[in-house]
């Protein structure tokens, strides 16, 4: 009896002390931005004492979780459509950018030596170009000695925002791709081998001679993989990296789609990387847990203001300032409590 009383008291004490603790923001979704979210969260916790609990369960999972209201925010590499946002009462905004980069495993070819363009890349993944010495590749690379070797296209076997961005670009530049394969986080691939996750694709490309794959730029850089140059919309060959992604972001019209849902594929501009990609945050317009959501917005504002250098160190690309201004305007206008008072005001 006495023991039971002590146990009850202890539990009560634990509960009260737990609720008195600093707020923990919870989020779930895309795996691609996980490293930078973790780094930001760590720095933010040191500065404010408030932690962020982010589970990188994948974009699809993130969308499911926010719709089930189990998290404060969801994160997705593929934007929701305006219709979907309205129906579920969500707002969406991009937090950080990266890029999708083709990587190859060809003997004697160094990073950045091979150049490809969109239509050729689409033909390789459609199975129409089968060998590295194909005329289409040779034409783009007059100074590279291409082997007579079968091309092994490697792609994601799991649903992925990376795949979505890659397929979106191929559909932009190849009508064949648009009708035969289409755009989604998972596809019916005509050829090639599938691997799970960016690390799986990176591993398979590294192990398979004559292979080509697509990964987030950070993976290509960290694993010292042989990335290729791409011919962009302006017809110029560009290398992947933060400059070319920033160029693509600067030339994009962010307000043309609801929820800033612009895919940065095939953007105009001489310097634009053709497969730049943003990653989005999803939140409710009228959240149930006001304190958590207000704190999450504070965290995002902090990340926009102070997170650029950290993003850079991990090869992510910060959002342009004018876009951030628009996003914050949207917060004040759209995210409100029950009485209609905005959760975020620039002063706090």
């Amino acid at each position, binding site marked *: 009896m006495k023991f039971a009383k002590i146990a009850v008291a202890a539990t009560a004490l634990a509960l009260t002390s737990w609720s008195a603790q600093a707020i923990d923001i919870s989020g779930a979704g895309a795996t691609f931005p996980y490293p930078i979210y973790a780094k930001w969260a760590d720095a933010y916790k040191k500065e404010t004492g408030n932690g962020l609990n982010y589970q990188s*369960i*994948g*974009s*699809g*999972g993130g*969308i499911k979780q926010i719709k089930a209201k189990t998290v404060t925010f969801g994160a997705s590499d593929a934007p929701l459509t305006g219709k979907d946002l309205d129906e579920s009462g969500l707002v969406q905004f991009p937090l950080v950018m990266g890029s999708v980069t083709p990587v190859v495993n060809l003997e004697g070819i160094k990073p950045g030596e091979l150049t490809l363009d969109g239509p050729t890349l689409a033909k390789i993944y459609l199975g129409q170009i*089968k060998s590295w010495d194909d005329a289409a590749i040779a034409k783009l690379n007059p100074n590279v000695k291409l082997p007579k070797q*079968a091309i*092994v296209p490697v792609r994601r*076997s*799991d*649903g*992925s925002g990376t795949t979505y961005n890659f397929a979106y670009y191929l559909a932009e530049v190849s009508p064949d791709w648009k009708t035969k*394969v*289409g*755009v*989604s*986080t*998972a*596809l*019916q*691939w005509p*050829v*090639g*081998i*599938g*691997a*799970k996750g960016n690390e799986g694709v990176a*591993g*398979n490309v590294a*192990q*398979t*001679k004559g292979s080509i794959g697509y990964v987030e730029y950070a993976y290509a850089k960290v694993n010292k993989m042989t990335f290729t140059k791409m011919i962009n919309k302006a017809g110029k060959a560009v290398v992947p990296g933060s400059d070319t992604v920033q160029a693509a972001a600067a030339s994009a019209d962010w307000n043309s789609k609801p929820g800033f849902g612009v895919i940065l594929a095939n953007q105009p501009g001489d310097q634009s990387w053709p497969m730049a990609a943003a990653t989005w945050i999803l939140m409710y317009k009228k959240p149930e847990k006001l304190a958590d959501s207000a704190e999450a917005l504070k965290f995002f504002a902090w990340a926009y203001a102070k997170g650029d250098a950290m993003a850079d160190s991990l090869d992510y690309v910060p959002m342009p300032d004018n876009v951030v201004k628009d996003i914050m305007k949207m917060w004040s206008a759209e995210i409100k409590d029950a009485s209609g008072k905005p959760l975020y005001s620039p002063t706090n």
Partner: protein
Amino acid sequence: MNSGERDVSEAVLKDSTLTASDSASRSSVLRRLRVTDKVFHGLTRTAALLVLALLSGVILSLVYGAAPALGTFGFGFLFDESWNPVTERFGALAPIYGTLITSAIAMLIAVPVGLMIAFFLTELCPPVLRRPIGIAIELLAGIPSIIYGIWGLFVFAPFMQQYVQPLFIDSFANVPVLSILFAGPPYGIGMFTAGLILAIMVLPFVTSISRDVFDAVPPVLKEAAYGVGCTTWEVFRYVVLPFTRVGVIGGFMLGLGRALGETMAVTFVIGNAHHVSASLFAPGTTISASIANEFTEAVGDLYTSSLIALGLILFFITFVVLAIARYMLMRLQMRAG
């Protein structure tokens, strides 16, 4: 230990003599004993029923989850090769095909090799080698499947791509049937590589069970056979194998069960492509690999439901394999007497 036991029995004795003098307390003790027994009986029954409840729960939730997909695609689901998340048209043919082909390759290799190892260990092996080889086989069974997967991807697949597959493709280029089974290009990973990895994983099961049952063959039978002039092969074929058939089939089925359901190692090396290809070198997929790859990121109810339907099919295949095994064992036992 001994003194402890005596203490208990004395206590019981004292207890029973005490209750014998007092019939009221005696009946209460008996009642208590009966209640204890009933509770114990109930607990064991609950534990046993729990297994049944779990099994039916699994089946029910699989059927419930698979209902939307099976309702949309009907029986055609089993025979449709397409797996298109964009148009939401799904079929299970490629995963079923991959599962059966890789398991078949694995069993074709693992069973003869496993039986030979087991016979060597029990009959021919010098005693010095017997323990090291036996332990090595058992260690093989203890390696986690993810290790096989990583080894398969980083070591075995590049080796296959550079040496084994080009050799097969070139040598069989003009041989009918074989030229189709071993057609290029050499990807390194694919159904054949997955089957080989599975064979290595299944080998310890087949070997250790066969060794145990071979050990159980009465020496007098073998000695008699050798005595009338049988060769080692004849002893193996006509004495040891017939005597141990049931156990060997048991090991075979255990191995097949593992091959059918193995996920991680296969995912690494099969190529995860929803295609039905005649060439064993082509990438394919299995049921469990598809589920492991795609479940977390399956967007849309029909996609998720189709993956659950795949799970239901695997459940069914495993069930059929077990049922066939039972039936074969039963027939063997009936024939044996």
